[in-house]
């Protein structure tokens, strides 16, 4: 059947008119007195997280010297990431997702962080952390499974030791709160290491093996930067030796904690009781570059306020040159925004049965550049 040019034109025009009718209406009725558009923004910013600190812990003895060590990370390329996945039997589409490479297929997911070489592998990732059908065996069986998997896949560099099992649990909620028994639905076998007799702590310090249905391994996460040469020394009495840095004594560190307050996302606390203080080394999460590990103080305890009591841990660099700062603390880089110049969005509405999201494949996006651990400044 031959269709005339005018028919195409009419169909096209009706499509355009129809589309205009579907564009959501931006309701201007919101712009009335009392709305954000007529309000002056206050200058006040920030949140008080400086409670009164009470020390109920014995302060630790500090060794004469503690080393400062280089950390080494692999040069992560696409080929390197494919090699990591291949060694675990995972093959699939390789995606450069900005901060990492991801190799995935319908069942397996592998990511390798560019900053550190940190690896995550998950089997059946589309149902990750789901409830098991068969249940879990006891912790001993799961530990054996995790040990065997770690050994077969060479997950643990020298020095890593089993550090315990934690669990994902499921519990019913009544209108009054959790009720009944919390049921284990996944096991997390943890492995960690020490350095100069001190624990290595922080998000990147633990290799975790995840065990699900029937105690079978479902995946693992491993950061594990290689510890390199002893680059320098930290001491409370540094003298004038080359490459020696002054270490805070515990009293000084506690005073700095009181000055700086809590750096966690805790709010509304009046009092913080420190029940443990110890020295450790710090290894950050795999998405950040870290070239050095050095001693830190770890303060543990509980904080109280109108909303109750909360446990906390505070990490603090132990070198004086870092003035008691926290390893992952960053300054605010946001810019002030005046909302009065931005159009108020339309009202929300209930979803239809199936929402449509454009099927753009994951692609590299512009993300925040990650900062590396700053070089140490030598004591003069």
């Amino acid at each position, binding site marked *: 059947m031959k269709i005339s040019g005018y028919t195409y034109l009419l169909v096209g025009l009706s499509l*355009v008119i129809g589309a205009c009718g579907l564009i959501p209406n931006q309701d201007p009725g919101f712009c009335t007195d009392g709305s*954000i558009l007529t309000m002056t923004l*206050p*200058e*006040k910013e*920030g*949140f008080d*997280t400086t409670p009164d600190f009470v020390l109920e812990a014995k302060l630790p003895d500090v060794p004469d010297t503690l080393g400062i060590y280089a950390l080494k990370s692999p040069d992560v390329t696409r080929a390197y990431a494919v090699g990591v996945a291949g060694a675990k039997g995972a093959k699939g589409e390789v995606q450069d*997702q900005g901060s990492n490479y991801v190799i*995935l297929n319908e069942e397996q997911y592998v990511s390798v962080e560019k900053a550190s070489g940190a690896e*995550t592998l998950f089997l059946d990732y*589309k149902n*990750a*952390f789901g*409830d098991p059908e068969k249940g879990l065996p006891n912790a001993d069986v799961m530990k054996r499974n995790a040990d065997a998997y770690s050994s077969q896949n060479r997950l643990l560099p020298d020095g890593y030791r089993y550090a315990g099992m934690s669990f*994902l649990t499921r*519990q*019913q*909620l009544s*209108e009054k*709160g*959790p009720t009944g028994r919390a049921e284990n*639905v996944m096991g*997390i076998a943890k492995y960690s290491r020490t350095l100069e007799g001190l624990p290595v*702590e922080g998000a990147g*310090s633990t290799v*975790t093996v*995840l065990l699900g249905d029937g105690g079978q391994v479902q995946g693992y996460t491993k950061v594990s930067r290689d510890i390199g040469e002893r680059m320098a020394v930290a001491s409370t009495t540094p003298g004038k030796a080359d490459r020696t840095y002054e270490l805070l004594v515990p009293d000084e560190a506690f005073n700095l904690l009181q000055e700086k307050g809590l*750096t*966690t*996302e*805790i*709010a*509304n606390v009046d009092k913080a009781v420190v029940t443990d203080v110890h020295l450790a080394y710090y290894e950050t*999460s795999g*998405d950040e570059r870290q070239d050095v590990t050095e001693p830190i103080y770890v303060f543990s305890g509980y904080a109280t306020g*109108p*909303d*109750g009591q909360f446990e906390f*841990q505070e990490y603090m660099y132990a070198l004086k040159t870092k003035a008691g700062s*926290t390893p*992952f*603390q*960053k300054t*605010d880089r946001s810019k002030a*925004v005046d909302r009065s110049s931005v159009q108020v*969005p*339309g009202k929300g*509405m209930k979803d239809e049965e199936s*929402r*449509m*999201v*454009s*099927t*753009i494949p*994951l692609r590299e*996006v*512009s*993300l*925040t550049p990650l900062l590396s651990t700053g070089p140490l400044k030598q004591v003069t």
Partner: protein
Amino acid sequence: MRGLLKPYLVSCALLLCLMCTGDAAEYGVSYDSTGGLGVNYDSATDFASRMDANGWDRQFLWGNNAAFEKDWKDVTKDGWDDRYADAADLAFFEGHGSPSGIYFPNDCCDDNKCSKDDARWGDLDMEWMAAHSCSVLADSNLAAWAYTVCGNNGAHMMCSHKNTCYARNAGDRWAQLMLSGWTVKGAWFQQHIEKQPSGVTARVIATQATANDHIWGEGSVASDPSPGDTWWVWTLTK
């Protein structure tokens, strides 16, 4: 005339595509990156960048002095959630918290805490909410967040922490995993394992049906829960 037809039809086809993506799901983010929480800016904006790049519509992205409690407060309680938090399918908060609410760095327009008494999520659009904040899902008000705030109104799930957590770039990884086909709950727990030190406890509350939700376009999504449905809590300590 005939020469114009082809380009015209191509334009119409493109317009049809735009109409399809115009029905994209929405996300919204508020954050507090003041007082040493600078990484929350990265977390919020990287989350937004990933969602933008994958076809989601941005309902709002407000930080610090521009992030208001009213954006999360129910419209029936003199809040604005019908245009902000509850006008988005996926809502993300980065900042301070306690069992009674999430905290904003200024008290513009009302006060600086969106409490369990202020919030009623899901009666409009919201399915999933995450508060990367300390202790919001501690035991003390867990039932209120589950039933009063979410379950009786239609929200599917809430993710946060039982105890003290650390400011990390959680939003980037959470978004990345969800957009790769992970469930909302699975992605929350995986980013937790990767980003937080030992001892920090993440929590997710949902019904048995909504616990396995993927975000729109990445897998199955359960129907809205009804009042009276039983809620559960999943707890993971690293």
